[in-house]
């Protein structure tokens, strides 16, 4: 700096001026508030109105929640304790907790079984949801349905073992013959599985379930949120593969397969779910003799699965249609056969596009499981509407019970949606 014209300048600062803090209105919460809440007059008014709304809602709900009663044994006692003050009667949740979760007929000493099945479910589902986990965990995922069946329904262990055996033998057969001839492998495998099941079923002695390690629980005794979870999980996991098959079938060149798929999808989509449920619970019992009906749970699972599979098929068809034709041609030009092209090129891309749609159907399906309450199955909503509100102790408690149900469903549905957003980010390849 020392230059010839040093003396021509009257004053030179020799040190840096200390940093002064930014103006109060340009920093911290004030700046944030100015930019986000009061950036213009209309926005300012909206902010004030929202604050007032939040105040109104909280000032009426918070006392109700915080003043809640948790330990009484009937609504009348709740009112006595509250003595005219505002307050929720959460005692109904504590007293009927087990009924809300497991239904009112599941044996009390067996609650650990669905609990264990739930924990194992988390383990089994992890490798499917998170691809970074070791692939060997998928073995447990494959075994899980049979383990869960045995835990929840109990009875003889032979039933799930025979079912598993049928799948294993059919799978082995498919491995051996399906490579060269898909149709032979597939249908041969199906026939072999049926043979194994019928022989195995005949071999299980009558009354084997009576002295089993885990006491048998009939489907009618399942209930509560457990039933919603079971229906939701089973139907989603069955309807995704079925939906993929239907979507591919609808695009097939073979008129018979295409026709069947189109008719199935259009028919099922054109009928309300509640109608299908009525058919499952009411009509089918006319066609079977009273002793040999198909299990009600199974009937409902089949109907809900059919319903959501039709929707998922259409979602996936959208994904398939969104793929450029070049992808199909590229697969052909590589010399891949149909199965390879679908597995390696088409479906991975199509499914990625379809994730939001599939999740949408899955969330909807999970909430639709509450419809089973109209065919007198006691899921969470059925328990609330039926036995709990009809008991002399708790008749008249609405907000607490239905709010609790809403909370449970929100937790599950929000987790599903968060997972799908994570999955979309993870699969995003930037093209």
């Amino acid at each position, binding site marked *: 700096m020392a230059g010839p014209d040093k003396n021509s300048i009257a004053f030179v600062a020799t040190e840096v001026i200390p940093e002064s803090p930014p103006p109060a209105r340009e920093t911290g919460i004030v700046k944030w508030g100015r930019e986000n809440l009061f950036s213009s007059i209309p926005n300012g008014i909206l902010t004030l109105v929202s604050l007032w709304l939040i105040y109104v809602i909280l000032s009426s709900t918070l006392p109700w929640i915080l003043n809640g009663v948790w330990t009484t044994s009937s609504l009348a006692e709740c009112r006595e304790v509250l003595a005219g003050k505002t307050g929720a009667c959460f005692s109904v949740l504590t007293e009927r907790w087990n*009924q809300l979760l497991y239904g009112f007929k599941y044996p009390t000493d067996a609650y650990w079984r669905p609990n264990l099945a739930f924990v194992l479910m988390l383990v089994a589902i992890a490798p499917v949801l998170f691809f970074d986990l070791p692939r060997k965990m998928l073995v447990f995922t494959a075994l899980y349905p049979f383990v869960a069946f045995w835990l929840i329904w109990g009875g003889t262990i032979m039933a799930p073992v025979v079912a598993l055996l049928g799948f294993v033998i059919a799978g082995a057969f498919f491995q051996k013959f399906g490579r060269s001839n898909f149709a032979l492998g597939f249908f041969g495998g199906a026939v072999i599985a049926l043979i194994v099941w019928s022989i195995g079923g005949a071999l299980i002695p009558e009354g084997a379930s009576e002295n089993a390690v885990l006491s048998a629980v009939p489907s009618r005794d399942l209930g509560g949120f457990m039933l919603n979870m079971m229906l939701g999980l089973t139907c989603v996991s069955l309807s995704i593969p079925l939906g993929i098959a239907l979507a591919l079938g609808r695009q097939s060149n073979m008129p018979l397969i295409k026709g069947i798929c189109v008719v199935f999808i259009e028919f099922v989509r054109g009928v309300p779910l509640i109608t299908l449920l*009525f058919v499952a619970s009411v*009509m089918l*019992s006319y066609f079977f003799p009273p002793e040999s009906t198909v299990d009600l749970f199974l009937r409902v699972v089949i109907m809900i699965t059919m319903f959501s599979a039709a929707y998922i098929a259409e979602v996936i068809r959208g994904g398939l249609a969104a793929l450029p034709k070049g992808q199909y041609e590229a697969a052909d030009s590589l010399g891949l056969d149909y199965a390879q092209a679908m597995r390696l090129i088409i479906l991975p891309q199509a499914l990625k596009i379809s994730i939001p749609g599939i999740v949408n159907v899955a969330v909807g399906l999970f909430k639709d499981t509450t419809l089973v309450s109209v*065919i*007198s199955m006691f899921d969470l909503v059925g328990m609330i509407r039926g036995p709990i509100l009809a008991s002399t102790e708790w*008749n008249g408690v609405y907000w607490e019970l239905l709010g609790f149900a809403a909370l449970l469903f929100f937790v599950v549905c929000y987790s599903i949606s968060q997972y799908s957003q994570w999955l979309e980010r993870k699969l995003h390849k930037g093209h």
Partner: protein
Amino acid sequence: MKKSVIFGALTVAGLAAGAAAAGTLDDVKARGKLNCGVTTGLVGFAAPDANGEWDGFDVGVCRAVAAAVLGDPKAVEFVPTTGKTRFTALASGEIDMLARNTTWTFSRDVDLKFTFVGVNYYDGQGFMVPKELGVSSAKELDGATVCIQTGTTTELNLADFFRSNNISYEPVPIETNAEAQQQYLAGACDVYTTDASGLAATRATFEDPSAHVLLPEIISKEPLGPLVRHGDDNWGDVVRWTLNALITAEELGVTSANIGEMAAGTNNPEVNRLLGTEGTLGEMLGLSADWGKNALMAGGNYGELFEGNIGESTPIGLARGLNAQWTDGGLIYSPPFR
């Protein structure tokens, strides 16, 4: 298409033949359990408690039949049914009898092919109003807003009542009883109308029940009773006479408290026939001689069931009214045990 229709018809015919051939009574005995259809939950009439045990006035009838047939009031498989599934459950043989506050009507009896074996509760449509309205009769309700469940007979009864009395009303359509309670308490309607037992049960859940009154007019007949399938008269007789046994026991003063003494033999021959110490009534029904005693031990006589579940000492607080014994001016009346 033709073929499937034929197969369908064959199946139905086969089922019908099967149901007619094998008696329900034998089925129940062989099974060791009575499949009894109840509601999914109605205060006082049927609801499972915190331990999952079913309890209520209709449930009492199921237990009495189970006790009469099998000797064990616990040998009942309760099959919860909704208003929509109840008749198919009975017709398809899923349940042996239905005790689900079902109104006995012509078309249900004749067209749907059921047999109503009796009436265990005489209900009727009533009105509830807030006390501050100052109304003492339904005929003063000119211009009132009325909460009414859509698609029910109550809706039609209401229209008839107001038309025949030349007064007007404004309906507020609602879907369920729960919704009605909220609407009524929020003041969306001046009057709530449904079956009188339902009104009483609803009022019992209010914070201040005394601020609401039930008007004296009952504008419809709703005889509620258990029913069985057409075509199996033996089984119908069993259920009918079990119900009659409960009613007769109250008339004759046989209660669950004194039944031990009475069963040892009394001077009243009808009591003896009822309890099986005299005559062969049980044998005629195809049951054991002490069937009546077992049925009464299950939950007491008709009056005890009424008082214990829906009577004035319970929160529901229904007066006997029409459901008093005929000797007390009510309609409850059983043919003699002879």
